[in-house]
């Protein structure tokens, strides 16, 4: 054991590492391996047929499109919110700051039914959108709204510390030298927070891809129109189509690994920029 670790006077290495790897294997790795193995037993033609089924393809389009759109909305508003919270003093700022984490703490079933009630045709906000022909609940727009809510804290919480660390003297120097606010924003602030924005976007996008609870209430779940991929897995399981569910689950798992890789790449890029300095 001492061959692969550096010596230490502290006890408990074997016990804690053993328990950690055992528990990780039992709860996470073995079950995930079961999904991969199940997928491997599916006949190739059947596998392709499930994945390229029209209903599946429509669900990928909705899941990817809505997650992408929600991620973009969150990047824009997340930046504005983080900016407001870091730069301005106003009554209730601390309360608003604390509320940002609400989507993390609020169970998705609660946000799902509550958003549906607010954005339904006769809801508090839905009724003002209805005259303009905008329907949110039970359309793809509702999916975007739900995914925007659950992704919001990722961007705000990534950008806030980055914005707080933009050096005030750099901004002051630029202004003293005659730079306009817009120039300061473009050449000093945005380059500094760009990695944080990218990290926040990727995290929000990754979370949105897998989200289930808050979406299914507001989506209306019409086949080919407002079905997200996770819902399609649940439908297949309810029909005891384990192979179909495993095939779609495998694709989603693959997507999660790609997103993990993307998050690591974005963060590595951010660290390199921090060392090299922006610009």
């Amino acid at each position, binding site marked *: 054991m001492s061959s692969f670790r550096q010596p*230490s006077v502290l006890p*408990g290495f074997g016990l804690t590492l053993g328990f*950690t790897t055992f528990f990780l294997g039992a709860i996470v790795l073995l079950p995930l391996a079961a999904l991969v193995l199940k997928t491997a037993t599916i006949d190739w033609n059947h596998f392709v047929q499930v994945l390229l089924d029209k209903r599946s393809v429509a669900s990928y389009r909705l899941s990817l499109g809505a997650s992408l759109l929600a991620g973009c909305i969150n990047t824009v508003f997340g930046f504005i919110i983080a900016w407001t919270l870091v730069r301005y003093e106003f009554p209730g700022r601390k309360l608003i700051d604390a509320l940002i984490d609400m989507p993390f703490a609020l*169970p*998705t079933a609660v946000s799902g039914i509550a958003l549906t009630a607010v954005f339904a045709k006769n809801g508090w906000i839905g009724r003002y959108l209805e005259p303009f022909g905008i329907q949110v609940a039970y359309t793809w727009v509702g999916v975007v709204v739900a995914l925007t809510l659950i992704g919001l804290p990722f961007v705000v919480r990534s950008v806030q510390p980055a914005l707080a660390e933009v050096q005030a003297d750099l901004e002051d120097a630029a202004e003293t030298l005659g730079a306009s606010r817009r120039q300061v924003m473009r050449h000093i602030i945005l380059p500094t927070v760009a990695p944080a924005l990218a990290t926040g976007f990727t995290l929000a996008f990754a979370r949105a891809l897998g989200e*289930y609870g808050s979406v299914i209430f507001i989506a209306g779940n019409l086949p080919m129109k407002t079905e997200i991929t996770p819902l399609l897995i649940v439908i297949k399981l309810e029909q005891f189509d384990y192979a179909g569910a495993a095939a779609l689950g495998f694709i*989603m798992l693959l997507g999660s690994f790609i997103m993990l890789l993307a998050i690591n790449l974005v963060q590595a890029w951010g660290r390199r920029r921090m060392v090299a300095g922006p610009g």
Partner: protein
Amino acid sequence: MMTAAAHAMADERRSRPGRATITSSLGRWVCIALTLGFLAALLLAPLAIVVTTALGKGIGAYLESFSDSDAGAAIRLTLLTAAIVVPVNTVFGIAAAWAIAKFEFHGKSLLITLIDLPFAVSPVIAGLVYVLLFGMQGWFGHWLQDRDISIIFAVPGIVLATLFVTFPYIARELIPLMQQLGNDEEEAAITLGASGWMTFVRVTVPKVRWGLLYGIILCNARAMGEFGAVSVVSGHIRGLTTTMPLHIEILYNEYNFVGAFAVASLLMLLAVVTLIAKNVIEWRMNKGRG
């Protein structure tokens, strides 16, 4: 979480003379208005509608929602699940943090990535993998059936799926905290003859207690509120395998809005308490560092 230094820098910037003349311009008001408007529509309106709908037919109807035996069973199952999952994940989190933060070994960063894996996976996948293992047509389906053990569509499945989704919460709070605090005090205690357990209880726990509590609170909130993973393995048997979030779904689909939002109001209360506790702990931790 922002560091104390970042907080101090932001506070200093806000109070800086001369800054006010630039920032009290139109831009300031537009930013504040956009922030408040966005959060009001997406966050405050849903929170408010939970309360108004739950109380829509009076306080009597609200309280009536909880006297239903199914609602009671759902609340008990949610509490039971959290009572199993949170302690188990606490023990795991502490063990993982001790191994990772106190020792240098090969494959450490891989281990950290694998511990974080459940955060990257959809909750539906978390449920699906257990159905594939323990469901009727799953790998161990027949074996379990022969022995009359049910995991899927029963409480053990709900506990397992909840364990999966809350797996990283405590470990990922403790690992960076323990790495940052270093090993000096523990090494001193061991060198002076304290036992490993004594060192952990007397030296390590007092140092990391706020971070540990922080992880426990977040883990608990997720355990009680999990919907997707639990929904897949539960089978939705009323009064038996429905947790509070699943009970909300059942009532909602039956158009019993007062009932659904009444149960939702309890979970919302849990979220509010969680956020308050989280902020108090963050404040304590920043104070401890400063």
